[in-house]
Every structure is written in structure tokens, then in C-alpha cells.
């Protein structure tokens, strides 16, 4: 594919009609809660968009994010747009390896200075000088700093990149941190999830290409279009929550009747993501629909919330040992205080002198 080709030309070459493309941008505009009038403008801009150079850095990660994105229900327009991106460096997807791969990254950085987008999946270990994860002898920390320096924007894909994720989980042996903690002076978009929803990824890239600016983000740097509402807000099981009908177990009558999973640990009420609306595998299902509570994977520290199967209304750690020790100390203190006050009372009774009228007259 020649580098000067626009997205419109590429889609035409692949037999995608303008009508189909407009339908896609309408869907995308609706998805991102943009005004309906934006769809043709988006189509216009997207069609004119030049190939965007993207450098994809994979650090402490499991490749699940790449799996998710490359396996969006193909063949779709998102796939084509994803293909349209000039993915100049990506460990899993690139053919080159070793020094040739590193050269590809350096070449892309030099050619598109100030214009390329850096996508990062995985967290960066910073403990002991960042030695716990290296690529071609370069530490992740160093590679991130080098690559981001001349970039246009950074997209942190997946919970590890967005918040540190699993490597960051207690006790965090490698000192893993989120990308946003290391990148200063460049815009960072977080698209968390374990893995993130493919449409959230492609939608955000399409927005960047169409409007040349970042979408609206929430306080955690996530595009509001996909992370503006909680799973619970859009959950089809919400009416059961409202009525107080809860499954107590994964195999009880409530679970079989499709009742709310709050009591078996669903984190939907505190998790912001689009799973309940966009769903997975081309809109087939999402975890709650298949009978399992939400794990809260698009939220910071979702691994350290006291267990996936413990309800939100419970304390993070068992309180019974604390209560027992406190009760013991309290009982001992109560005994001591009681004994002390008894002694004072006894003492007072012993030292009690009867006051007579004569005494009073003497003193006055």
C-alpha cells in the first residue's frame, strides 16, 4: 500500500461503497455520542485521512490486548481502518525481528517526527533501574522515553498500560507503573480493560484521525464516549437490583433466573466501560450476560479489591481477627477500669469521716 494513499481510496479499492462507509461513521458517531450531523463530516475527514504512523510498544503485558483488537469480528470496517494504520512497529504483528525490528521503529520515528502516535500495552517496571523487562537490550523505561519524545500523542491500551494492571498488583515486585505516570508533556489517552473492547480502541483512533484532536476524557484519562457510564447503569439485569432480587450463588435459583449478581461479587456498579452496551464478539454477549459478575477490569487496582467473588458491600479484608483482638483488649481494659473504680470506691468508703455540725462550725 503506497504511503500517500488516503483511507477513502483504500476503502474504494477494497469495494466499500460510500453508503456503507457513511453507515459506519453514523454508527461510530452514535457510539461516541456525537451529534448526528457529525457523521458525514466524520466520513469526509476520515476518507481524506492519510495513513497514520503508529508505533506499538509492548511492555509487561500478556498480548491479550493485541488479541482482542486483531480479533474484532472480522471483516469489519474497524478492521480495515486498523489495517489502514501504518503500524510501523509491533512485536507480535511485525514480520521483522531483532535489529531489523528496532531499525523499523527508529526509521518510523525519524520519518514521522512529531506526527506518529505511540500505542503502549503493558506496564513499565521502574524498580532497580527498570532491568526487569528489556527489548533488544533496551529497558522498557528507556524505550518509552525515547519513543514518546517526538510523538503526537500516546494511547495506553489495556489496564496494565493505563493503571499498571496485573504487574502493578500487590506486592508489585518489579515496581510496575502506568504509562501516564512516566509520560509528561504529551497527551495520554487511557483505554483500559483486560482486554479493552476493540471498538473503544478503533473508535478512539477514528476520532483522532477525523478531528485531529483528543476525544473528551474523564478524570482517569478515558474517552467518555466509551467509559462515561458504569456497567451497572446499562446492565440488562439492573431491574433485578432495583427489586432486590439477587443470586446468592452461581448455582441457585436466582442465578438460573438471571437475577442481579451483586452478592456474588459483581463490580459493575463501580466499573466504567461499554461492555453492557457494545458487548463482545460482535455484540454476542458480555460477562454478566454469560452469568459471571463484572471483575471491574477497566478500573485501577482491580486485582487488589479483596477478591472477585466478594460483594462490594463487604470490607476488603476479613474483620473478624481485628474484632476479636479489639474485643479482648476492650474486655481487659474494662476489667482494669472496673477494678480501679472499685478500689477507689472502697478507698473512699474507708477514708470517709463523718462530718458533724461541730466540724462545720469550726471551719467557718
Amino acid at each position, binding site marked *: 500500500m503506497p504511503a500517500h494513499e488516503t483511507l477513502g481510496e483504500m476503502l474504494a479499492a477494497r469495494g466499500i461503497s460510500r453508503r456503507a462507509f457513511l453507515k459506519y461513521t453514523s454508527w461510530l458517531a452514535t457510539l461516541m455520542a456525537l451529534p448526528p450531523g457529525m457523521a458525514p463530516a466524520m466520513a469526509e475527514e476520515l476518507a481524506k485521512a492519510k495513513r497514520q504512523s503508529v508505533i506499538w510498544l509492548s511492555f509487561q503485558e500478556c498480548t491479550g490486548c493485541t488479541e482482542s483488537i486483531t480479533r474484532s469480528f472480522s471483516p469489519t470496517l474497524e478492521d480495515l481502518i486498523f489495517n489502514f494504520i501504518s503500524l510501523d512497529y509491533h512485536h507480535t504483528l511485525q514480520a521483522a525481528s531483532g535489529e531489523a525490528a528496532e531499525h523499523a521503529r527508529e526509521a518510523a520515528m525519524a520519518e514521522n517526527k512529531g506526527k506518529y502516535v505511540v500505542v503502549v500495552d503493558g506496564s513499565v517496571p521502574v524498580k532497580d533501574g527498570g532491568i526487569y523487562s528489556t527489548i533488544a537490550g533496551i529497558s522498557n523505561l528507556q524505550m518509552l522515553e525515547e519513543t514518546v519524545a517526538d510523538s503526537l500523542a500516546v494511547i495506553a491500551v489495556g489496564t496494565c498500560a493505563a493503571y499498571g494492571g496485573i504487574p502493578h498488583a500487590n506486592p508489585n515486585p518489579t515496581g510496575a507503573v502506568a504509562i501516564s505516570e512516566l509520560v509528561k508533556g504529551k497527551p495520554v489517552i487511557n483505554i483500559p480493560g483486560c482486554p479493552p473492547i476493540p471498538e473503544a480502541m478503533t473508535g478512539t483512533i477514528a476520532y483522532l484521525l477525523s478531528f485531529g484532536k483528543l476525544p473528551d476524557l474523564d478524570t482517569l484519562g478515558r474517552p467518555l464516549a466509551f467509559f462515561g457510564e458504569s456497567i451497572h447503569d446499562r446492565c440488562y439485569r439492573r431491574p433485578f437490583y432495583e*427489586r*432486590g432480587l439477587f443470586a446468592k450463588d452461581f448455582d441457585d435459583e436466582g442465578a438460573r433466573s438471571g437475577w442481579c449478581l451483586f452478592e456474588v461479587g459483581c463490580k459493575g456498579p463501580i466499573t466504567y466501560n461499554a461492555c453492557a452496551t457494545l458487548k463482545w464478539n460482535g455484540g454476542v454477549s458480555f460477562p454478566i450476560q454469560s452469568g459471571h459478575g463484572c471483575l471491574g477490569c477497566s478500573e*485501577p487496582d482491580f486485582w487488589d479489591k*479483596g477478591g472477585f467473588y466478594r*460483594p462490594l458491600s463487604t470490607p476488603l479484608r476479613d474483620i473478624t481477627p481485628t*474484632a476479636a483482638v479489639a474485643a479482648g483488649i476492650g*474486655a481487659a*481494659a474494662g476489667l482494669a*477500669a472496673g477494678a480501679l473504680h472499685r478500689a477507689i470506691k472502697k478507698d473512699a468508703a474507708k477514708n470517709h469521716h463523718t462530718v458533724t455540725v461541730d466540724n462545720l462550725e469550726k471551719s467557718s
Partner: protein
Amino acid sequence: MTTVAFLDFVRGPLFQIAVAIFFAGLFIRFVEILVLGRKTDFSEPRQSGTGAGFKTVFSRSVPEAGTFKRSAFTIIAGYVFHIGLFVALVFLAPHIALVRDTTGLSWPNLPTPVVDFATVAAIGALVAILVNRMRDKVLRFLTGFEDYVAWTATFLPLLTGYMAFHHLLLRYELMLALHILSVELLLVVFPFTKLMHTFTLFLSRWYTGSAFGRKGVQS
């Protein structure tokens, strides 16, 4: 600190601290009361006081006709509040989930509309009681700082709990965190204020009843 981190903090270390203070305080007060005891009654009992003691624990929950006439408002509002609080505390599904998680005990929850009704009634009764207290000169004079602390510590969990469950005003995670925080405040002040009557009431009623019983008089 993000909202979620705040929620983790109140569900984690802060809850442990509150529970520790609550239980330590509860046992200090209880054990001290029991150790101090009462003066031995040397008079010959007309009958055993035990039965009368237990009877009084329950019988004193029913107001006497004369008392009811004089302060019907206080009694009705008091009942509405106490029953409402009990229903919200004991029969809301997330609360039962907490008990089950901690102790393994569980019981069926009431439908949400029933718990809602009880909660709103309890909130309404608390507000009415406070307004009545502010308007009545004598009551206002008798009300001290501790009473306002006790009222606030009881009111906040009810209000924030209702708003959290129904996703009102703030995002759920923040409102839930505020609800748990208000409960922690309640746990901390509970043993050291009049709120302790939740437990000591049984002790004092039994004592009064048994003392009266020994004398063979009606309690």
C-alpha cells in the same frame, strides 16, 4: 486520590480501625458496668426477680396509656425511626451479604421497595424528631452537644445509604465510599455516646425489672 482508591481506603484500613474502636469500646463499657456491679440487696426477696427482669425487657417497649397521651409524637416518631432503621440495617441485601461474608450467617432479604419505604420513613422520623427538639424550648435546653453528635452519626448512614443504593447525586463509588465512611463514624462514636443504649437498654431494663420483682411490685 481517585474515587476508587478512596473507596478501597474506606473498605480497607479505615474499616479495620473503626471495627477495632467499636469492639474495644463496646467491651470496655460492658465489662466495666458488670465489674462495678450494684450494691448487694440484703432484704429478703418476696420472689425471684429473674422472671420479672426478663418480662420488663419486653414490657417497657410498650408505652403506658398516660405516657402515650402526653407525648404521642415522640413515641410514634421514635417507633417509626427505630423500626425503619432496623429494617434497613437488617433486611437490605447488601447488608446481609456483609454479615454472610463475615460470619457465614444469612437470612432472606426484603424486596427493595419495602426497605426503601422503611429507610425513607426512618429519615423522615429523624428529621421530625430534630425539628420538634429545636422548636420545643425545654427539649432544646436539655439537648447537649453529644445528642447532636448521636443524631448526625445515625442520620448520615441512612441518607448516604439510600442515595448510594439508588445512585442519586454522586457517582455510585463515591456515594458508597461516603456511606461506608459515615458508618465508620457511627461505629467510632457508638460506644462512647448515648447510642450505646442499643445494648445497655437490655441490661438496665432487666436490672430494674428484677429489682422490682424482688420487692413484689409491678415494674
